[in-house]
Every structure is written in C-alpha cells, then in structure tokens.
C-alpha cells in the first residue's frame, strides 16, 4: 500500500485582537488579558454602541485604504506564514465577510459605481493574496460560516494528499462589519459584557476579527517543520439553520472522523481547543459531543474565544495556530473570561495558562448551517526518515473522472429537458428563471422564510437526486455561489440603514450567510455529509467540482455538486457587471450527482485545472492552461471547446477567442454565455448540458447542431483565472 503524503506545517501567521503576530500571540497566551471594547470600525447607535467586540488594533497602515479590512488582515497574516519562501502552488481561504465592510459604507452612501464594489466578492480576498504573493495555481475560497478556516485547512490537506499540490497556503480571514455585528446581536447571541465560555452565567459570544494562515507542505525540508496536520473530519448537523443539534451528534461525528483520519484513539489527545463560543446552546451541545467521543476520560480543554473573541471564518485558523503553540511551547491555554464553571456541562476547563507536555491536539470549529470541522494537530516528527517516505510517494496523477448519475439545471426556459429543447430549436435560454420552475421544491412550511437562492438550490438538488434514482443522501455536498443570497443581504442592510443602524431582521441575517442555501439543502435531504460552499466568482462551480473530486479520490462514494446564482435587482449589477448585460443578464444554475467512474453507461466529468496568469488579458490564463493540458494529451481529442467569456473579461472578447482558436485548432470554439446567459454559475449549467450532449452525440448551438463523434467536450473559463473541465461519454 502506498502511504499517502503527509501534511506538514512549515509556517504560521496570525492577527487577532491582542496579537499582531505569532510571538505576540505566545505572550498573550502566557499572560491572557482581553481588551474587548465597543466597535470603532463602523458607527453603532443606541444600546448597541456599548456592546463589546474583539477588534484588531495595529493593522498594517502601509496598505492602501481602498483595500477592504478583511483583505488587509489576510495579507498581514499570510505574509508572516510565507516568510521569505517561494510562492505556494495554491491558496485555500475561508471567509464570510470579504469586502462587506467597505460595501456597507458604499451602499449607505448610495454609490452606484461597480468600481466601489470591486473588492466585495469573497473570492477577491484569496485573489488579492495570490496576486500579492505570486501564487499561480488554484485560489480556493470556501465559506461555511464559523467553520470556514478549519474546512479550508482540511481541503488544503486534501490537495496535498492527492498530489495536486506540494505547497499550499491555507487559513481564514474575517473583519468586523455591521452585517455580522447586528445580525448576531438581533439573534441575541452577543454577550453584553464579553463572552464567558463554559460559565454558568454565560450570555453569548463576543464577535471578533482577524486572520490566521498555515503554510502546508507535503515534502518540506526537515528544519522548517513546526507541526503536522494529522487528520481532519467534517460533518453537517442537518438539524437547524443556526442552532446546533442539542445532543451534539453532528459535532461528535466530525470529531470521530478527524480522529479516525489521524489514526488516533481519543485517548491520544492531550489538549482539546473548543469551539466554545460562550452561547448557551453551543457550549451545551459541544459538551455533550465531547462526552460521546471521549467518555469519562477527557483531555485538558479550554475555549480561547474569551481571549481572542470569535473571529468567525478566521477562528479555525487562529485556533490552529494556538493549538500548535500549545504543542511547540508545552502550554495549555486558559479558558479566559470564565468565573464559575457551568456544572451541568461536566467539563473542567484549564483555568490558568499551564505548562504541560502536549503531543496531539484536537481543535473544534462549528458553524451556521450545522457545518462542523475538526482538526487533529501533532508536533514535528522526530525521525527525518518518516518524511522521506511521504516525499517519494507523492503521486502526480490527474484527478479521477466522475460518472454523472443525475443532473438538473434551471434557466429562463425551465428545467434541463426544457432548456435542451429550446437549445435544439436554436433559441437562447438566457434570462431569469421563472418562479414556477422552482417553487415546488419543498413543502410550503419548509420554504416560507426562504428567498430566491435557497429555493433555486433546493429545486436543483431535489431534481438531480431524483434523476439519479438514488434515495440515500449524498456522501459529500459541494455547492458554489459567487454572490450568495443577495436578496437577504440587501434586505438586511436596507432595514438597518432605514432605522439608523438600530433594527434589521434576524431572519434576513441567517439567510444572508453564503452557506445558508447549502444548509437548507442538507436539511431537506437529511445529509450529514461534509457540506462545503465555495464562493469564487465565476469559478465557484469549478471549485465545488475540484473539492468533490478530491473527496472522492480519497474514497467518498458519492457527491452532489451544484452551483447557482439568484439575480437581485440592486446588488447584482453592482457586484457583477457581467450580470447587467441587457438581454443576457441571467440567473439559475445546475446540480450533478456524481459517482466513481465504475464503467457504467453515462457521461463523465473531470476537473482539469485552474490557473492565474500574470498577464492582464482575458485569455492569457486560458492559453497557459491549454498549453499545460496539451502537454499531457493532444487537445484535438475534443469535438469542441465550450468557452465561458464573462462580459467583464473585456470588450475584445472576440479577439481573445480568435487567439484561443489558433491554439485549439481544429476544435470548434463556442462562446456559450451568448446562449446560456451571463451569470457566475453558468458553467454549472454548461456542464450539465454538456453531459447530455456527449450522450446524445450532438451539441445544439445556434442554428447548427454540432455532431460529437468523439463524444468529448472541453469546457474553458476565460478571465484573470482560467479553469478547464472535460465532459465525455
């Protein structure tokens, strides 16, 4: 048996309330003093002006003001982790805020220039880091609420173990903003006097901000190794949009999966860094989950959120750094903020910083949508020989092709069948999905609070699953959405601004979270599988496919991969100018049920690559990617190349296509957004249609239908980032 590559940590970076780097965090953990105070990065009115938060001070002032706060926090921590080493192969980032703090000010000021919102998208954080640090490979953005960074570290581990990368920068970043501050406040989850995790009188969390990064390598030089990610585990409660399953069964499942992945017994864990937000429900459910996993022999444990605040999507990475400090320094961090332990929890947290030998640590991160992610961390290996084994075994094989067992799409013309017929008739399917096409996805009571995006997603998931003939929920759920639930975001901020920053809607806040739709899908399907939401602009679907492929390469037996956008009249044109291109403005998306390629009849889909070009032209990245693909296998094995050209790529789209045509000759090149519409998840729709086309042996396109003799299509995305997917029979 070939040993899988190991995941070594060779660099750390952190910024959070009270610490601007790892050395300062060390000192803070030794002498824990928290400085919670009311926010100053945005105006707060009324009683909320007195609510404490964990705000970062000492942000690098050399960076331009136009760069949003999350981007600046991320860059500061990422630079620390990378040090002076060469650029990594890829970056995996967890974030929920992106440029929202800046967007809030721009919306309130009534700015109607898309320029003011160019850093709004969650993907712009990872892309800004990639550009600043010279990272040319995948820049993956995952958004699973408060478990985002732990999920990012887990996906980065999967990239290394698959051999797709050898050096990955991974972590999370989030900043304080009005959306999360007022959202959590109206959910009555913010502690009036600061969080006191595990305390009998605990009254909520303290929302914080920051960033944490780990540089991960599968074949590092020995002296550089500071720690190792031994295992990761994820699950979804599939219980409620925000409340954890009271018995903690989903959390326990994720902890067990992480231990199993690490090949460790629960008794091998020396320290447990809790999610420990300080809310009544979280701490109670987590305590029960811990009992299920550890029985009566509990490791030393504490929540450090009473010290750092809860930095949301950054928390998992900041706490991974804290866990590593626990190992390298032999230090058990204190459960800061605690006065009297809640006896009902039956936990005995570390009260003061305590010296102890720490071999392995389990770190918990749980989030809205019931998304749980746990990491098992260990120290640097004592024997260099162990590393050599990993080094020599790194495979370089492409990711496996996956069989499409079921498919669904939604366009202005309706479902997959209706869309296909319209295309066969030579018609365009661009435009907005009619409500009738997705309104009956779930019972009225289930969807009464849901707006357009979750309803679209529910319909896609249901239809794809039904068409696969499978009744069991998928083993992985990977969702893409560039812009998330925009109607919910718009409604929340509108209500907030209308009341002078006083009142909004807890319902809209819950709905506005990027992974809320995927959480609803898990609820409807009863899927306790890992549940990821990727928010990576025009390649959100491609990243969902990439990460599902990583999971299936590691043995998961099935996946539901989907992506969708919901047009919102005010925000869509501001955030994604491509979505404002007249008749081509569109929304909708597609879902695929994927199984391993077992030789059964059906279409196959394979993720081939993602890369960024240093050239600022629409097709440079695609040209470079095609050159790489051509070096592996001749490109003339494809019947045609379907190309996604976002309207934002430039006015010279035709010329860009022409240059690509020269490279790809003799394959016909078809720019499909002209027919399918301009929206960020349209590549999902194109993939679902391509899966049908290769089986039928014909590609309907305009007045001509192109025969597919080889039954093989290449799908390319143009832009600063290019991606490639192949679909074949």
């Amino acid at each position, binding site marked *: 048996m070939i040993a899988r590559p190991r995941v070594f940590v060779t660099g750390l970076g952190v910024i959070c309330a009270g610490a601007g780097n790892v050395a300062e965090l060390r000192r803070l953990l030794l002498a824990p003093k928290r400085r919670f105070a009311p926010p100053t990065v945005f105006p707060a009115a009324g009683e909320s002006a007195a609510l404490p938060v964990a705000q970062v001070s000492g942000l690098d002032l050399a960076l331009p003001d136009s760069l949003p706060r999350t981007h600046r926090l991320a860059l500061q921590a990422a630079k620390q982790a990378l040090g002076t080493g060469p650029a990594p192969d890829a970056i995996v980032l967890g974030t929920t805020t992106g440029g929202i703090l800046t967007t809030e000010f721009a919306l309130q000021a009534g700015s109607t220039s898309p320029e003011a919102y160019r850093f709004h998208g969650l993907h712009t954080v990872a892309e800004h880091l990639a550009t600043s640090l010279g990272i040319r490979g995948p820049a993956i953005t995952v958004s699973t609420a408060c478990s985002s960074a732990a999920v990012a570290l887990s996906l980065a581990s999967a990239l290394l173990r698959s051999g797709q990368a050898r050096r990955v920068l991974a972590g999370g970043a989030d900043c304080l903003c009005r959306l999360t501050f007022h959202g959590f406040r*109206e959910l*009555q989850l913010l502690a009036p006097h600061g969080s006191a995790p595990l305390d009998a009188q605990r009254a909520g969390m303290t929302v914080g901000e920051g960033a944490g990064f780990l540089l991960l390598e599968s074949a590092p030089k020995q002296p550089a190794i500071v720690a190792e990610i031994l295992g990761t585990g994820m699950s979804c409660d599939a219980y409620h949009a925000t409340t954890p399953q009271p018995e903690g069964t989903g959390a326990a499942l994720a902890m067990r999966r992480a231990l199993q992945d690490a090949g460790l017994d629960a008794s091998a864990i020396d320290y447990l860094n809790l999610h420990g937000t300080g809310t009544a429900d979280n701490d109670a459910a987590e305590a029960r989950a811990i009992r299920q996993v550890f029985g009566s022999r509990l490791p030393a444990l504490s929540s450090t959120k009473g010290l750092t605040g809860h930095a949301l999507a950054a928390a998992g990475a900041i706490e991974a750094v804290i866990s590593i400090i626990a190992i390298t320094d032999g230090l058990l961090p204190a459960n800061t903020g605690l006065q009297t332990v809640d006896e009902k929890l039956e936990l005995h947290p570390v009260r003061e910083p305590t010296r102890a030998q720490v071999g392995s640590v389990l770190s918990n991160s749980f989030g809205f949508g019931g998304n749980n992610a746990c990491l098992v961390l260990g120290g640097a290996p004592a024997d260099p020989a162990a590393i050599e084994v990993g080094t020599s075994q790194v495979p370089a094989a492409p990711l496996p092709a996956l069989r499409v067992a079921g498919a669904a799409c939604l366009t202005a013309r309706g479902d997959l069948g209706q869309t296909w017929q319209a295309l066969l008739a030579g018609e365009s399917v661009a435009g907005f999905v009619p409500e009738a096409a997705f309104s009956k996805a779930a019972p*009225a009571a289930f969807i*009464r*609070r849901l707006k357009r995006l979750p309803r679209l997603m529910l319909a896609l998931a249901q239809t794809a699953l039904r068409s696969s003939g499978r009744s069991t929920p998928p083993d992985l759920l990977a969702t893409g959405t560039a812009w998330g639930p925009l109607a919910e975001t718009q409604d929340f901020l509108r209500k907030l601004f209308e009341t002078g920053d006083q*009142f909004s*809607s*807890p*319902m809209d806040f819950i709905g506005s979270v990027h992974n809320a739709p995927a959480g609803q899908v898990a609820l409807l399907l009863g899927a306790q599988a890992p549940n990821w939401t990727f928010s990576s602009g025009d390649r959100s679907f491609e990243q969902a496919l990439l990460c599902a492929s990583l999971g299936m390469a590691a043995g998961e037996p099935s996946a539901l991969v989907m992506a969708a956008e919901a047009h919102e009249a005010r925000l869509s044109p501001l955030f994604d100018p491509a979505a404002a291109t007249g008749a081509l403005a569109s929304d909708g998306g597609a879902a695929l049920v994927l199984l391993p390629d077992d030789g059964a009849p059906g279409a196959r889909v394979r993720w081939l690559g993602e890369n960024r070009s240093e050239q600022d032209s629409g097709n440079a990245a695609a040209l470079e990617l095609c050159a790489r693909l051509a070096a592996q296998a001749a490109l003339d094995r494809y019947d045609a190349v379907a190309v996604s050209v976002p309207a934002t790529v430039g006015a010279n789209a035709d010329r860009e296509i022409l240059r690509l045509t020269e490279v790809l000759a003799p394959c016909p090149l078809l720019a499909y957004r002209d027919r399918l519409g301009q929206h960020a998840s349209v590549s999902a729709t194109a993939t679902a249609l391509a899966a049908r086309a290769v089986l039928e042996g014909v590609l309907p396109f305009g007045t001509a239908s192109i025969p597919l003799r080889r039954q093989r299509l290449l799908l390319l995305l143009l832009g600063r980032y290019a991606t490639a997917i192949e679909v074949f029979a």
Partner: protein
Amino acid sequence: MTEQTDSLVVELAHKLVETLGLDTTAEVVDPAAPLIGAGLGIDSIDTLELVVMMEKDYGVKIDTRAAGIEAFASLNALAAYIRQHRSASSP
C-alpha cells in the same frame, strides 16, 4: 371573536402574517391561541424576528425569557404586553 374587535390585535395579526411569511391570513389567526409551537408553525427564529418588530414598531423590549413567555402567549397577550410596557412617548 366574542369580545369587541381590538384594533391593536388586528394590526398585530397582519404584521405577524406579513413579517413571518405565514401561509395563512390575518383574519384566521385566533387571538386567544398560543403563538408559538402551535398551528402557526412559529419557531425560535420567528420569535426573534417578532422581538425586533416589537421594539422597532412599538418601542417595547422583550429581553428576558419570562417576558417572552408572557408576551407570546397569544395575540391578545401580545397586545396587552404592548399596552402595559409602551412608554408614553412611543407611537
């Protein structure tokens, strides 16, 4: 309704249906029936939405568990809670 129609109760019934997107009409909501956990399907998230609405539209705070139990016992109870706690300056 046996008693004379209470305009505040009627107003609250409309707000309830509209704010929570309930699959019913204001006229059929029984002003004496429990609001939570009964036929309307109102849950904890709806309750938080109503708490915000009460403070925004009536200047009335529901900030303890006991207050919530008292206020959300029924539409009639909600109206009574508003009348009892509304400050003179509020609308």
